[in-house]
């Protein structure tokens, strides 16, 4: 079952893709990475990472409840994540941009309340079900290897819907995210766009957390997007970089997990984290190089 990693990458990939569950993991991984890269870029720009995380945590009791009642975990993830997104959208609806300190404090407290209760519910369902510790760890820290072909079909369908909606509202969403006052004056329905984005975020988080687990969604939702925003302030280029980093982290992470007998949550998160640290280092070097006169001047002053 577990072959050795060889430096002939072609045979490695051939071998990986010959195992149906691994092939499904690769298929699903690319869908999830593309989706998370796009939606995550907007989430980071809008500073809604905390909301994103809470929605993900709500997915945990969703999945546990679904499994407990004999439904598919996927259904549980989607139901609870989109539900949580709607709750957050409803209670932050007045804020427009959510830009004042008071509104931000209010919504972050609300989100924290939702998050804590969600975790407690998850614990309850697990207790009711009576000890399925493996699944618990999957729900929280992720597992790519249980993906069926049917799961992949669902993921592709959801991703297609979310990405099409994102493409349709893209420009308005960017406008509302950056400049709500002017967007409203131009007739863009700010509240509706904000709420719609949260729902799309809910659907995305539901997908992503099936792979990374509820606690590691940020591996694909935040890290690639944040890395892209370190590299560039151009929206189109940033989105592209985020997607590429997400796909590479997922694919290489899967291979690493498989050959190295590691959990996918750990490998994928570590790779994405590595990209982010690398981006910060590159930026630091770039800034240093851009001001060589100042740097060398300082050194001369010392010697």
């Amino acid at each position, binding site marked *: 079952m577990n072959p050795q990693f060889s430096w002939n990458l072609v045979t490695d990939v051939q071998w990986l893709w010959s195992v149906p569950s691994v092939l499904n993991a690769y298929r699903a991984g690319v869908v999830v990475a593309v989706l998370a890269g796009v939606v995550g870029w907007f989430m980071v*720009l809008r500073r809604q990472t905390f909301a994103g995380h809470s929605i993900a945590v709500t997915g945990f009791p969703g999945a546990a409840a679904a499994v407990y009642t004999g439904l598919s975990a996927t259904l549980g993830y989607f139901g609870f994540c989109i539900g949580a997104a709607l709750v957050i959208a409803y209670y932050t609806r007045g804020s427009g941009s959510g830009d*004042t300190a008071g509104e931000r404090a209010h919504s972050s407290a609300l989100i924290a309340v939702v998050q804590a209760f969600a975790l407690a519910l998850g614990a309850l369902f697990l207790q009711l079900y009576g000890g399925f510790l493996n699944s618990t760890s999957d729900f929280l820290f992720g597992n790519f290897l249980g993906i069926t072909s049917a799961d992949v079909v669902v993921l592709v369908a959801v991703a297609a819907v979310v990405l099409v909606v994102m*493409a*349709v*509202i*893209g*420009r*308005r969403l*960017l*406008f509302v995210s*950056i*400049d709500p*006052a*002017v*967007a*409203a*004056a*131009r*007739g*863009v329905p700010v509240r509706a766009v904000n709420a719609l984005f949260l729902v799309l975020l809910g659907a995305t988080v539901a997908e992503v957390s099936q792979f990374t687990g509820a606690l590691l969604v940020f591996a694909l939702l935040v890290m690639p997007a944040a890395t892209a*925003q*370190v590299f*560039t*302030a*151009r*929206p*189109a280029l*940033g989105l592209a970089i985020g997607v590429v980093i997400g796909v590479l982290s997922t694919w290489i992470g899967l291979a690493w997990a498989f050959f190295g007998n590691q959990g996918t949550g750990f490998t994928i998160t570590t790779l994405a984290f590595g990209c982010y640290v690398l981006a910060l280092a590159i930026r630091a070097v770039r800034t240093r190089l851009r001001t060589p006169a100042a740097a060398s001047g300082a050194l001369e002053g010392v010697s």
Partner: protein
Amino acid sequence: MKNTDTRAAGIPPLPDAVLELRDAAVAVGGRRLWGGVNLTVRPGEFVAVLGPNGVGKSTMIKVLLGTLPAAAGQVRVLGARPGGAGDQIGYLPQRRNFDGSLRIRGVDIVRLGLDGDRWGVPLPFASRLSPRHRAAETRVREVVELVGASSYADRPIGECSGGEQQRLLIAQALVRRPRLLLLDEPLDSLDLPNQAGVAALIHRICRHEDVAVVMVAHDVNPILSYLDRVVYIVAGGAASGPAEEVITSETLTRLYGTPVEVLKAADGRLVVVGGPEAPALHSDRHHSDHGHAHAAAAASPRGFGS
């Protein structure tokens, strides 16, 4: 109402007027903030809306945008009711500060002013293929050039200084070639050289692009020499006309109903002294500058000095 403008309600609308207010009044939550405003603005004119803090200067802009209905009187903007000519109005809300970590270029912010309210996303490489996209990019570059922001428009806007951000936002408001520009305290929180620079820029745009400008201002001095007309709003009343007729001891004394003196400094700057206690602050306005409004409220017309 107290008013110095000779124009009375009942005169037929001027064909070339960009903006006409006749005996307009505004109420928020059933409370009348100001009333009796008569004003006509023609293309290329520069008009300032002045008055003490908390009196509702920004609500004037909201009425012109159509987001707040006038409680009385007539308001016509570009020949239509307010809100009916959205495309031809450029709007700059009260001071927005872009967070230092916001990773979006100035040029993207300007571009959103052009097509941010459209559906869809710009396709990659579309600018090379479609003439419409090429025209959009040319227009953005043009307007960035006009406000003198070319050297920093490609930097993330969070890294730009307050004056640079304000120039980019003016470019955003201008990018659709509006016939009317509504500016809400654009000089607020800029240092003096930047205030002078941005004021001169707005004046230049006004004259050269034939855009009518209505600007809410806290301090009239940076723009005093450029103004065609001012509207001075106090609680319950208003006066409009040329600055030298409105910002006088007589007019302001009549408006405030208490002795007010306008002093002219040697350099031409105006300082308003005296005046009554300001009305109680209204919590539904000026969210962003509570402390500021409070401090200035004790001697309301002091806003004219600096």
